């Protein structure tokens, strides 16, 4: 069946463009993963070649795993990311609900104020944040990171979620009120399940920069106990000698958790889209 919008040359053209983009986007990731399974000589000898039985070497992974702390770094990253994500989604959704549901003086000003953070990079405030953390004794704790990341993620979360919350039917919320549900029950039981797809979107946007961040762990929590994966990988990056096997292996491992979280959330995204289509 051929329709006006799907001629063969058009289809080929579109796929060529998309495939080129996919290759460009995935190239560095593939190179990292491929080389993490090769011996040091093979990495430099033929960086683009896939591992052969001759060049196959797990030395990078054994180094990383052998360095007992690395599991610990992973744990830190995971704790920071999941905790920040939880707080961003919870507080973001609550603020968005208040902004979209209740009429109060200064509502739109408050909305603007909460969204302002999207335009101002949080890193500009690094010095003040560091002073604050020193004064409150939070330097070298995961709490410091969680607080900063929660603040960093909130503006976008509030902005996106309040738009979606406005679309939730007023009648449904009012039906809940007449049935005697409290505002909290209405929020958690009626509204949140309906905005789940947008929550997943926000989760993905929030999670990736947190997991990948090097800046704040380096400044606020560089101690051995609180190192995150990205900071931990710097361990193998010496001034004179760099252990490329270990770095590539560490980075390959670091991709996994985000990938898993992304798959979980993106399934929500797709479900949300299809369930919306058929009403």
């Amino acid at each position, binding site marked *: 069946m051929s329709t006006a919008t799907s001629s063969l040359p058009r289809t080929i053209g579109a796929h060529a463009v998309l495939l080129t983009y996919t290759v460009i986007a995935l190239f560095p990731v593939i190179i990292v993963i491929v080389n993490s399974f090769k011996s040091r000589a093979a990495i430099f000898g033929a960086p683009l070649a896939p591992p052969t039985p001759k060049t196959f070497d797990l030395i990078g992974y054994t180094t990383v795993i052998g360095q007992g702390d690395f599991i610990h770094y992973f744990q830190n990253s995971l704790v920071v990311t999941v905790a920040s994500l939880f707080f961003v989604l919870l507080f973001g959704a609550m603020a968005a609900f208040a902004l979209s549901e209740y009429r109060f003086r200064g509502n739109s000003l408050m909305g603007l104020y909460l969204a302002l953070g999207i335009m101002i990079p949080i890193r500009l405030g690094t010095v003040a944040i560091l002073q604050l953390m020193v004064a409150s004794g939070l330097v070298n704790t995961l709490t410091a990171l969680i607080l900063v990341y929660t603040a960093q993620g909130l503006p976008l979360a509030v902005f996106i979620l309040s738009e979606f919350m406005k679309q939730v*039917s007023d*009648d*449904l919320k*009012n*039906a*809940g*009120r*007449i*049935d*005697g*549900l409290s505002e909290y029950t209405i929020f958690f*039981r*009626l509204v949140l*399940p*309906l905005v789940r797809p947008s929550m997943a979107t926000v989760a993905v946007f929030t999670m990736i920069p947190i997991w990948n961040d090097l800046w704040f762990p380096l400044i606020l929590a560089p101690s051995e106990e609180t190192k995150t994966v990205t900071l931990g990988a710097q361990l193998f990056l010496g001034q004179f000698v760099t252990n490329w096997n270990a770095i590539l292996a560490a980075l390959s491992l670091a991709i996994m958790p985000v990938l898993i979280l992304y798959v979980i959330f993106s399934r929500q995204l797709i479900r949300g889209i299809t369930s919306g289509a058929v009403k």
Partner: protein
Amino acid sequence: MGSLNIENVKKAFGPVEVLKGINLEVTDGEFVVFVGPSGCGKSTLLRVIAGLEDSTSGRVVIDGADVSATPPAKRGIAMVFQTYALYPHLTVKNNMGLGLKQAGTPAAEIDRRIGIASSMLSLEPYLSRRPAELSGGQRQRVAIGRAVVREPKLFLFDEPLSNLDAALRVNTRLEIAQLHRRLKATMIYVTHDQVEAMTLADKIVVLNAGKIEQIGGPMELYNSPANEFVAGFIGSPKMNFVDGARLGETAKTIGVRPEHLTVDAKSGAWKGTVVHAEHLGADTNLYLDCEKAGLITVRIFGVYNAETGATLYATPDPAKTYRFGADGKVLK
């Protein structure tokens, strides 16, 4: 058990006054319909009665108790919404039972009431389904069932039939009428559809621009409208309004319903040409462009063959002609 008094209720959103002092008395067991064009404040008034909206001033009294400061759940009301507003994550049974569960009603009592309501609305086969697995008509019946199980003093309906297709609308209208007869409960029903208002109501409240234009039974509003607005709003097709000066009358406007005009090919009061004819089988609507009266609608019962462009004479029934003064009020 189910009277309602509204005393001088006003509601303003910022500088915009939506309700401009509403006074209304509803006695126990009455079916009252609020009708009016969109934006007239009828839904806002219903929401004030429900407690979903605070009034700016005035009192709402249900069963002798001032409920102006009472939350919706404690007012003894139940509401049916235009968009059904069923809880998507709960089954039909739990949708109906949630309000009672929140109020701490014993489970056996909840089951008993759901049983009665679901047999009344023939919902038994669907009790374990979720709203997404029901059709529009079934969903609205569940919403009505959810109201019934609460055994409220006051039923509130907010345009419950607007989302249904024409055939279902008639069926559900019938069900609501039967429900009222069986429960003998006080019901307040908001609609913009005057057919629903005429067929269901004991008492119709016509609202316009935040004010009550007239309160009365369906036939009272049809036969003796208080003013031009009510006369034009009740009845379909709309009443013809003719400038009194053009007819040599003292009244500002002369009103006559399309069904109270007769046509004749040879002689009559107003000579005109047929602009358009609508053949509905049971009756025929003719649009005549008259020399004296302007464009008027004539409703003839049965089939009437009239060619476009033909000349016809229309004559109003003098006993059923309304005269309105400059202020829009009917002249006696």
